[in-house]
């Protein structure tokens, strides 16, 4: 199964945009992914091993959290798992204007 890696996380997969993972379910595919690329783990999962709330997982074009079996949904080699993080860029503030309070 192909797992697509979003731009902000590609630095942890050696720049790869897509990773091929053989796994029976969504959960196990993610597990294999983070074992192969350990630095991904803390970006995708909380210390309690839950998927971080600002990361969305899509199996093909469906949000995994709305699938009946959620992360236990079985997958085949023809499926694609997409990791979709929040991005906020629109227009950036002028440099030097940022105060300690604004998100950088």
């Amino acid at each position, binding site marked *: 199964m192909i797992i697509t890696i979003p731009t902000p996380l590609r630095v942890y997969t050696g720049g790869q945009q897509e990773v091929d993972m053989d796994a029976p379910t969504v959960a196990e595919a993610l597990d294999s992914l983070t074992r192969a690329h350990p630095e991904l783990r803390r970006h995708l999962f909380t210390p309690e091993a839950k998927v971080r709330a600002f990361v969305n997982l899509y199996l093909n*074009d469906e949000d995994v959290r709305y699938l009946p079996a959620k992360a236990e949904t079985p997958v085949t080699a023809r499926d694609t798992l997409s990791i979709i993080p929040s991005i*906020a860029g*629109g227009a*950036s503030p002028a440099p030097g204007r940022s105060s300690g309070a604004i998100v950088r």
Partner: protein
Amino acid sequence: MPTMTEAARLPELTTDDLSRYARHLILPEVGMEGQRRIKDARVLCVGTGGLGSPLAFYLAAAGIGTLGLVDFDVVDLSNLQRQIIHSTKDIGRKKLDSAEEKLSALNPAINLVKHETMLSSANALAIMKDYDIVADGTDNFPTRYLVNDACVLLGKPNVYGSIFRFEGQASVFATEAGPCYRCLYPEPPPPGLVPSCAEGGVLGILPGLVGVIQATEVIKLILGKGDSLVGRLLLVDALNMRFRELKLRKNPECPVCGTNPSVTELIDYQHFCGIVPETPQEKSVKNGIPQLTVKQLKARRDAGEDIFLLDVREPYEYQIAQIGGTLIPQNDVPNRLGEIPRDREIIVHCRSGARSQRIAEFLKQSGYKDVANVAGGILAWADEIDPSVQKY
């Protein structure tokens, strides 16, 4: 959705309008009635930067009757790589004034309303209530949640676009039947985890692409024609020129737009996104980390003190400018603690002081006794100590 004004009550088109919008009038999907709907429409553009530039330009070209612009920023040279509504001669000028000048030149007939303010919980509802549709072109998470919540509370569609490096997202949130931004992202990322455009960089053309997609969705909502992005997240990968769609569902348990909303008024979005404002007394120490000014850093180096200057930026930033620090990019720090001595004072810096603060806190938690952060980063060094250091 904007109320479908009776055809009879829609504004008439002038002779100038008939000539100007001729190419719209002959389109079956627009026609006279569609153009009158566009003339009747009131659209608020939040942000006149990367996304706002093409958005506002095309909405003005289309003949939106009332175009509101929200921005409090000033044009900077680094904006001109993508914020095409501004010109070189506008550097230093208020973005609102610059935008107004170009939009009036393109279409003098539209009613431009400038809102020179930072959108906040105190003013968002009052500003937004006079518009039919809101187009979100902002650049930070707190404002995105603010705009979303205000749109849901007021019942105004939120035409959303966002970008990062080469990738963009677009959708239409906050319609009655459709999802809102919180249905997709119930929680924001902790501050510092997702770089801003200033730190991650952005391909100049990308907001052009996504901003026009937003303008398209605004026009379609007004006309009531075509298939809008309600319930769909459009993903744009400009580098590979691939467009994908994901299904978005309205979350029945959404705290803002669900069946039992717990958010019924605007909240403190900075706090929601984990950003704690600094009080004046705290300026010299933040979260237990002493804040060093660049002047103090220079004084310590000149005095030959045995400090370890840790630079936590990325290699390509180091190539642009550096001040002699040891480079360990922020995400490598946990794995390279062995290279950071525990028996010396560690002074951490980055570009503006935000990443370095986080790493300084991490080092403190990892048992380092003597850690300080360079407030203002290499930008402050370039401003106050050595102007030959390239700012970026």
